[in-house]
């Protein structure tokens, strides 16, 4: 009896061990012995790469170091940031203006690093607002959002931002087709008749980075998903993945998954430029915001623009060609040579790779299998370089290394598959934990990939980290691609939901990083460039406090004569001129946020006092041994009272 019980227990135990060993474990279980040393960046040492990771529904862009996975910054782009005052300070509010008014949030999916000759140049980083269509440009010397342009005629800016070889254009393709033109109040069921797509070409000034919408293409009505510009031989072309060629407007899950093939749309944008030069574009009345941050005035301006130039591709059929692509393509990625275009049908069993050369031959020979809304559809076989057979389930995105290999993410089978672009042979596959979406190889979308790693941005985290209730951290995983086999090195948590990410060598930007704003160049209209200029002025109900901050006092720090009902503007100038000495400013009862002021900068917090009393304010950023002394008082008198306007610092004459 006893013996048989022991045997039973032993067999259960061994069964448990066997079962356990089948279950994927944490990094310890699946990484090999030297993984830790490959991601260890010793204290005080720098990472080799910057990794710019979209925050998805937080509307921000996070900056990580690779290979350590350490988080450096979370840049507010389409979101408010109470920590820095972004969207709360008077200077930054215009950055979030749109034709719909002030919008404090959006859904940022895709970063795009600027390129010259198809290679990273480390100048700017673009990002898209998916919900209320916008494109932002972040300056990589300040890591701040420098410009935001709204996209008119767009129903969701998902196919965006993707850039041409020399950053001539940033494109922004609409996800949803919507009714465009003068009459937009139409039945939803009139989709086929009234709904159109729209692709915006945003021109980028090569010196300043300033954006303007040069033109829009009006395209057939279905969904536009993702995109890549051609490069090298295919420079001058753009490729967009299109789905819902069924033109469904309800239950797309089913109704947009019926066709065996949807399209890759090939756009000859040089041809579009020719038509525009001939004056073929039509001006349309629209309304969209263009917001620019000026580093000299430390202030943003928002301007409404009311016109856009449109080219309807149905009228100019040699701008656009369709290439059939199996089953709702998502990723549409161009290899470093510019010759191969990978289409990833989310529901497809094979992954087609198209050849730019073959597409050109097919166009020359008019090798078409028909047309869609008058636009030629190239014969699938004629455009095809070949198919990757049985690659995995649910292919989404493809990045490339410099050795002719591609890395494709598979959401459904939760893995990264490495394959050879020319031979289409599958070389390796590794699991991801869990359900990978985008992936990133440093320089992966460029003509000159930097290689070394592939990073998986996963959609599901589940049991990978200590639990934090129903809402878990999001997660990324770093794999080495230096050897023949991919090797998992590290899991690291991310902020928001990561979609696409890009990485570049730190050496491309780190020495260009701005350390301070020279106070001599500060052209803010309310700057106090020195304590002598610190003062308080009343203009009707507006009270302007020209305040200075330096370790460790605010000037003025005693203010009297403010009345209930006033709008009090604290214009705080940080007089420091040394790196990493920001000051903060907060006042009790302010209904907005704090402001964080970098050395040499001026920022403004608006405060509306509601009750009489003496109200404390202080510096929020620990600045020195006497930081806790960096404080002051504002006296608020009842509305209509005669308390004289007075301000001082260090004046103890009145002390009794």
């Amino acid at each position, binding site marked *: 009896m006893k013996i048989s019980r022991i045997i039973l227990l032993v067999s259960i135990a061994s069964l448990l061990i066997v079962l356990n060993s089948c279950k994927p474990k944490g990094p310890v279980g699946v990484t090999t012995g030297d993984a830790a040393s490959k991601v260890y960046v010793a204290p005080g040492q720098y990472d080799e790469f910057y990794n710019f990771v979209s925050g998805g529904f937080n509307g921000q862009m996070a900056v990580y170091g690779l290979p350590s996975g350490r988080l450096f910054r979370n840049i507010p782009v389409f979101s408010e940031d109470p920590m820095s005052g972004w969207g709360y300070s008077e200077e930054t509010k215009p950055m979030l203006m749109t034709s719909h008014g002030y919008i404090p949030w959006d859904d940022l999916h895709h970063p795009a690093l600027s390129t010259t000759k198809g290679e990273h140049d480390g100048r700017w980083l673009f990002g898209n607002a998916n919900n209320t269509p916008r494109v932002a440009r972040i300056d990589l010397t300040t890591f701040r959002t420098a410009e935001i342009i709204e996209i008119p005629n767009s129903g969701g800016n998902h196919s965006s931002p993707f850039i041409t070889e020399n950053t001539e254009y940033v494109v922004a393709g609409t996800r949803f087709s919507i009714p465009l033109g003068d009459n937009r109040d139409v039945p939803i069921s009139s989709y086929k008749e009234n709904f159109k797509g729209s692709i915006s070409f945003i021109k980028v000034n090569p010196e300043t980075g300033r954006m303007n919408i040069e033109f829009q293409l009006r395209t057939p009505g279905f969904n536009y998903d993702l995109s890549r510009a051609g490069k090298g031989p295919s420079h001058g072309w753009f490729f967009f993945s299109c789905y819902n060629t069924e033109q469904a407007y309800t239950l797309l899950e089913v109704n947009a998954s019926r066709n065996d093939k949807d399209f890759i749309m090939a756009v000859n944008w040089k041809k579009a430029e020719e038509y525009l030069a001939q004056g073929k574009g039509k001006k349309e009345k629209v309304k969209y915001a263009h917001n620019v941050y000026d580093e000299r005035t430390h202030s943003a301006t928002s301007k409404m623009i009311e016109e856009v130039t449109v080219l309807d591709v149905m009228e100019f059929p040699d701008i656009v060609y369709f290439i059939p692509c199996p089953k709702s393509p998502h990723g549409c990625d161009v290899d470093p040579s510019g010759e191969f275009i990978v289409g990833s049908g989310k529901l497809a069993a094979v992954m087609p790779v198209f050849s730019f050369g073959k597409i050109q031959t097919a166009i020359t020979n008019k090798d078409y299998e028909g047309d869609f809304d008058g636009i030629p559809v190239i014969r699938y076989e004629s455009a095809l370089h070949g198919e990757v057979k049985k690659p995995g389930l649910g292919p989404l995105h493809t990045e490339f290394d410099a050795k002719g290999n591609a890395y494709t993410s598979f959401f459904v089978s939760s893995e990264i598959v490495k394959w050879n672009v020319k031979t289409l042979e599958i070389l390796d596959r590794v699991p991801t934990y869990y359900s990978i979406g985008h992936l990133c190889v440093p320089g992966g979308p460029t003509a000159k990939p930097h290689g070394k790693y592939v990073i998986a941005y996963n959609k599901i985290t589940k049991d990978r980290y200590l639990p934090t209730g129903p809402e878990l951290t999001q997660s990324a995983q770093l794999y080495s691609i230096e050897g023949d086999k991919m090797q998992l090195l590290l899991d690291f948590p991310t902020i928001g939901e990561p979609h696409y990410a890009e990485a570049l060598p730190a050496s491309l930007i780190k020495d260009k990083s701005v350390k*301070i704003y020279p106070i001599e160049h500060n052209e803010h209209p309310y700057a106090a460039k020195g*304590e002598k200029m610190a003062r308080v002025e009343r203009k009707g109900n507006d009270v302007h406090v020209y305040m200075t901050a*330096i370790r460790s*006092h605010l000037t003025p720090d005693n203010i009297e004569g403010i009345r209930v009902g006033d709008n009090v503007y604290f214009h705080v100038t940080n*007089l420091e001129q040394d790196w990493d*000495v920001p000051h903060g400013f907060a006042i009790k009862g302010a209904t907005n946020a704090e402001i964080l002021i970098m050395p040499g900068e001026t920022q403004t917090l608006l405060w509306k006092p509601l009750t009489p009393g003496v109200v404390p304010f202080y510096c929020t950023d620990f600045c020195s*041994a*006497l930081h806790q002394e960096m404080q002051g008082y504002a006296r608020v008198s009842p509305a209509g009272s005669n308390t004289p306007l007075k301000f001082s610092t260090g004046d103890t004459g009145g002390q009794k």
Partner: protein
Amino acid sequence: MKKLMTVLVAAAILAACAPDKPQVSETTGAMKSAVEEVTDPTKGIGQVKNVTLHNPLDAERVQRGLDIYEMKCSACHKLDDQRVVGPGFQDITKRRKPEWIMNMITNVDVMLDEDEEAQKLLELCLMRMPNQNVSIGDARDILEFMRQNDGEK
């Protein structure tokens, strides 16, 4: 006139050589000892080795110095002998060598770490003087303004 030209040329050279932000240059052991032999500790540590002063004061320099003082220094240094955050400026040009003053302004982090006199001031004020990103040319202007503040003509 000739004198003025010499001063201007010297100032131009100084200003031209001055990096925006003074760099800490590493010296080898042998070089260091050679430097130490000729270095006057009362001149402080930094790029400013020799300053030639002239009278009468250069009025344009004094004005530029005043402008920079008001923007970058006045928050902590008053013009009388009153100590606020840092010591008052009164009689500073009588207490310190011109080179020491300019090195303190342009190379403050090294001065606070290595110069005995600067360290005494840190113990007194308990606040590290910030690097205000002042070029050597600008520091020379501030010095001229300090001389005027101390009654020189």
